[in-house]
C-alpha cells in the first residue's frame, strides 16, 4: 500500500514548490551574452568603487570595463565633484590614462600631447594653430553618468539615464540610507579572472548551502539554525540573511581575535560591541546567531554587511566565458594595534574561505559548457535567490524590465 505523503508543512502553510529548473543555456551562449551586454550592462547603474578612494581634487582611478567595451576614468575635479569619462583622447582616440590610480593636475595624452583638466575640458593642443577652426569647447572628455549613494560610486553608460540611481536602488537605498559606511576602511582587496560565466561566478555567492561541503575544512562545525537562510527578493535586487553555529568553539588565535575586538565572519560572542546587528534592515529576525546580510545589487554588485566589517564583490563579465572579479574587505577604522591584530585574523580567515569558494566555479562552467546538461536543479528554499537572479537577468534580456 502506498502511504500518502503529506506535502504540506506541519504548520499548515502552503506546500513548498518543487525543485526549480534553471537552464544553463544563458550561461554558455555567446548570443545571450550579447543581449545581456546590450539590455543589462548598457542600461543600468553599475557600482565601481568607494568615494573615499578618491578624497582630494585630482585623485582618480581607472577601470577597464570589457562588458561596456570601454575604460572608465573616475576623477574628482577641483570643484570637489566626482565625474566619470571614457578614458580616451578626443584627438584620435588613444587611451588617455594608463596608471590604474593616482593624483593628477591634468591628463596629457601620450600620443600627441592633448591635455585635459580634472573636469574633463580640453585645455591644451600642441601646435594648436595647425588645427585652425577647431573648437576646444566641443572636444572635452566624453562623460558617463556618475552618481554616489552612501559613498558608493555608480556609473551609467547613458549620459542622462531615465532612472535616477536612488530609484534604481530601491528598496535597498531606503534600507541602508545613513548606514555608518564611513566608519569602515579598506583592509583587504583580492581579485581573480576566471574562465566562467559571470552568473555562474555569482551563484557561488548567493546561497549558504555550499558551506557544508565547500567550507568543510574552514567551517567544520557549521550548523546554522535555521539551516535555510532568510531570502528576500527585492524587485530586481535581493537580500540573504546568514546564520551560524553559536556553539562554535574558537581555536586560540580566533579566541584572541574575538577578545581583542574583531568580529570575524564566523563566531560572534561579544554582541555588546556590535551595533550593526541592530540596524533595522539587518538581522530583521533579530537572531543571536546572525552573522551577516548580503545585498545583491543588480546586476553585479554584492554587498555583505556584518558586525564591524563589510565585503564588496564586483563581478565584471569579459565575455560569455570569462569574468573578472574583485572583492574588497572593509573593517572598522581603528588606530589601535591590538584591534588591528584581531582584524588580521578575520581578514585572513575570510580570504582563505573565499579561495575555497573559488574552487568550484571554473569546473562548473566547463561542465555546463559541454552542453551535456540542459538545466540546473535548484532548491526552492536554499537556492531561491539564484533562481531570482537568473529570472531577473532573463526578464531584462526579454525586455520585460521597465
Amino acid at each position, binding site marked *: 500500500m502506498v502511504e500518502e505523503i503529506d506535502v504540506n508543512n506541519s504548520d499548515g502553510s502552503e506546500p513548498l514548490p518543487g525543485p526549480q529548473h534553471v537552464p544553463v543555456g544563458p550561461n554558455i551562449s555567446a548570443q545571450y551574452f550579447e543581449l545581456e551586454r546590450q539590455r543589462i550592462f548598457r542600461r543600468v547603474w553599475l557600482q565601481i568603487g568607494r568615494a573615499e578612494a578618491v578624497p582630494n581634487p585630482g585623485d582618480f582611478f581607472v577601470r577597464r570595463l570589457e562588458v561596456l567595451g570601454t575604460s572608465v576614468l573616475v576623477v574628482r575635479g577641483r570643484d570637489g565633484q566626482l565625474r566619470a569619462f571614457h578614458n580616451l583622447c578626443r584627438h584620435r582616440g588613444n587611451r588617455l590614462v594608463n596608471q590604474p590610480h593616482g593624483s593628477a593636475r591634468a591628463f596629457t595624452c601620450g600620443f600627441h600631447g592633448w591635455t585635459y583638466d580634472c573636469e574633463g575640458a580640453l585645455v591644451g593642443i600642441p601646435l594648436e594653430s595647425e588645427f585652425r577652426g577647431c573648437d576646444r569647447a566641443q572636444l572635452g572628455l566624453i562623460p558617463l553618468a556618475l552618481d554616489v549613494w552612501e559613498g558608493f560610486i555608480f556609473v551609467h553608460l547613458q549620459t542622462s539615464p531615465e532612472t535616477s540611481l536612488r530609484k534604481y536602488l530601491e528598496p535597498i537605498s531606503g534600507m541602508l540610507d545613513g548606514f555608518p559606511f564611513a566608519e569602515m576602511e579598506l583592509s583587504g*582587496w583580492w*581579485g581573480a579572472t576566471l574562465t566562467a560565466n559571470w552568473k555562474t561566478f555569482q551563484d557561488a555567492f548567493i546561497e549558504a548551502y555550499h558551506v557544508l561541503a565547500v567550507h568543510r575544512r*574552514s567551517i567544520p562545525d557549521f550548523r546554522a539554525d535555521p539551516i535555510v537562510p532568510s531570502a528576500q527578493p527585492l524587485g530586481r535586487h535581493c537580500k540573504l540573511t546568514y546564520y551560524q553555529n553559536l556553539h562554535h568553539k574558537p581555536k586560540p588565535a580566533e579566541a584572541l581575535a574575538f577578545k581583542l575586538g574583531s568580529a570575524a565572519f564566523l563566531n560572534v560572542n561579544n554582541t555588546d560591541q556590535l551595533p550593526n546587528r541592530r540596524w533595522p534592515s539587518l538581522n530583521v529576525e533579530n537572531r543571536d546567531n546572525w552573522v551577516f546580510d548580503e545585498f545583491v545589487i543588480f546586476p553585479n554588485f554584492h554587498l555583505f554587511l556584518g558586525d564591524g566589517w563589510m565585503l564588496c564583490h564586483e563581478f565584471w563579465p569579459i565575455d560569455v566565458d570569462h569574468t573578472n572579479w574583485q572583492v574588497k574587505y572593509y573593517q572598522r577604522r581603528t588606530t589601535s594595534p*591590538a584591534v588591528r591584530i584581531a582584524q588580521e585574523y578575520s581578514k585572513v*580567515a575570510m*580570504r582563505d574561505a*573565499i579561495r*575555497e569558494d573559488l574552487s568550484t566555479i571554473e569546473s562548473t562552467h566547463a561542465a555546463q559548457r559541454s552542453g551535456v546538461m540542459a538545466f540546473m536543479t535548484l532548491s526552492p528554499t536554499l537556492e531561491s535567490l539564484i533562481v531570482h537572479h537568473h529570472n531577473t537577468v532573463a526578464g531584462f534580456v526579454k525586455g520585460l524590465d521597465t
Partner: protein
Amino acid sequence: MSATQQDNELPERFRTLSQFVSAWSLPTEQERNRKRRSSSMEEIRRFYNAMLPEMAAIAEHLSAFSLDDLPEKERRLLNLALSFMEVALAVEVYSTPDVPGAIEAERLAILTR
C-alpha cells in the same frame, strides 16, 4: 652592535622573539601569505608555538601606541603579530601551510595596499 642585530631589535620584553624577525616580520599581507605558503609545517609551528603564549602581552604592549605613530621596534613587533594571525589558519584550521582544495594561490591576486 651590528646592523643586522639592530634590524632585528624588538621591545626589550620580547627579545626572545627576535630570532623570528627576519623571516616573519613582514609589512604586507602579500608577503606574509607568501611566507606562510612557502614554509614547512615544522617552521610554521615553531613560529606559532613561540608566539602564542606572548600574543596577549604583545597586544597589551602595543596598546600604549597608536597605529599612526608606531616606533620602529613596535612596528616590527606588530608585523610579527600579523604573521602569527596569517599562520594561525594554517595551524588551527587547515593543518597544512596553504588552503587545501582551494583555487591555486597564484590565481588570487592580493591587491591590498
